[in-house]
């Protein structure tokens, strides 16, 4: 039986007074089937989700996980690797509480993540200037992205202006594997909403240079994110509408910005996210 749970394998320890958490990513984890076929690496958002799970064990009254102030991904984490999460410090800004986490894998820094916690979700700006049904025809998303089930999180592209912007959707369903061990009344994990947004952004930057197979093409990597704010949670039956636009794109690296909406209400704001395409051989050294 493969586990579909995102964070149930976290264990806690201490190291010189700071609280450390260990989590393993066994090769049998279902997410590796689709991320990516033939070249499994841990999705960056799962490292972020693991940090949030660690922080929520540190906090007595966690409040809401309200966003990601910043995250930087340094080294891809491969299956069977253990990761160690250290919740390092706490900063207060504007009444929010920030927790900084450092994540290492086999002793190498894998990522640094600063999470924001808040009493309430702050509303996001309402949608402005979304134009549905314009731009290029996209066709089969599997011919553009290397992601596959259970972690292909874009269902349809509504509009796309190459090199500029995209409007895409993802229907959240109780039938997807992440709900196998969750009640249907539980919110769709924020990490997967971020992943889904990133994949929409990935369609935008890959549409003119499709990348359906990491073994012959490139691995799509998460470079970092900044100013991601959560506003409204999604539940089975909701349709996420992702709007993403390119701020800068240079040599396979793109800085993107945008929002996610549910029924026209802002669900998430993305300050910016950096995505990079790199040949698989560059990562394996083979």
């Amino acid at each position, binding site marked *: 039986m493969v586990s579909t749970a995102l964070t149930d394998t976290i264990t806690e320890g201490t190291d010189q007074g700071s609280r450390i958490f260990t989590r393993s990513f066994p090769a049998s984890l279902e997410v590796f089937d689709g991320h990516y076929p033939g070249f499994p690496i841990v999705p960056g958002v799962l490292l972020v989700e693991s940090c949030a799970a660690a922080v929520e064990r540190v906090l007595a009254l966690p409040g809401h996980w309200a966003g990601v102030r*910043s995250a*930087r991904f340094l080294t891809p984490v491969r299956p069977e690797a253990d990761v160690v999460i250290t919740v390092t410090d706490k900063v207060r800004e504007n009444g929010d509480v920030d927790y900084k986490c450092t994540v290492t894998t086999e002793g190498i820094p894998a990522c*640094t993540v*600063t999470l924001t916690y808040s009493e309430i979700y702050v509303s996001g700006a309402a949608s402005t200037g979304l134009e549905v049904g314009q731009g290029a025809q996209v066709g089969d998303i599997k011919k553009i992205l290397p992601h596959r089930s259970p972690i292909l999180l874009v269902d349809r592209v509504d509009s796309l202006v190459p090199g500029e912007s995209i409007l895409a959707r993802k229907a959240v369903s109780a039938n997807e594997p992440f709900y196998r061990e969750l009640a249907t009344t539980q919110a769709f994990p924020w990490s997967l909403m971020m992943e889904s947004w990133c994949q929409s952004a990935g369609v935008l930057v890959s549409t003119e240079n499709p990348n359906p197979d990491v073994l012959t093409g490139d691995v799509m990597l998460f*470079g*970092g994110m*900044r100013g991601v704010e959560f506003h409204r949670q999604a539940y089975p039956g909701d349709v996420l509408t992702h709007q993403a636009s390119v*701020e*800068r794109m*240079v*040599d396979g*690296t793109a*800085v993107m910005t945008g929002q996610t909406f549910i029924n026209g209400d802002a669900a998430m704001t993305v300050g*910016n996210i*950096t995505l*990079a395409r790199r040949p698989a051989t560059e990562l394996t050294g083979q």
Partner: protein
Amino acid sequence: MNTTTVDREDLRTLVAETLDLDVAEVTDTADFVNELDVDSLMALEVMVVLERRYAVKLDEKRLAEITSLENAHRLLTEALEKKG
């Protein structure tokens, strides 16, 4: 207020925040790539953050010139002067 001035300390704080470094590490001349471990992804992110904060457009070809706080300051000041 002179809109063509870039406050060096504001810029230092912004760069440090973006790169996840202590302000003290971002000296005027510390080399982003060799001393502060900035890779091409982070360099592009710095460029986007600077453009947003100072409302200027920087030429992608000059990305390689943003090698230190001093150089970033010069490039931004130039861009703001051009904008007028």
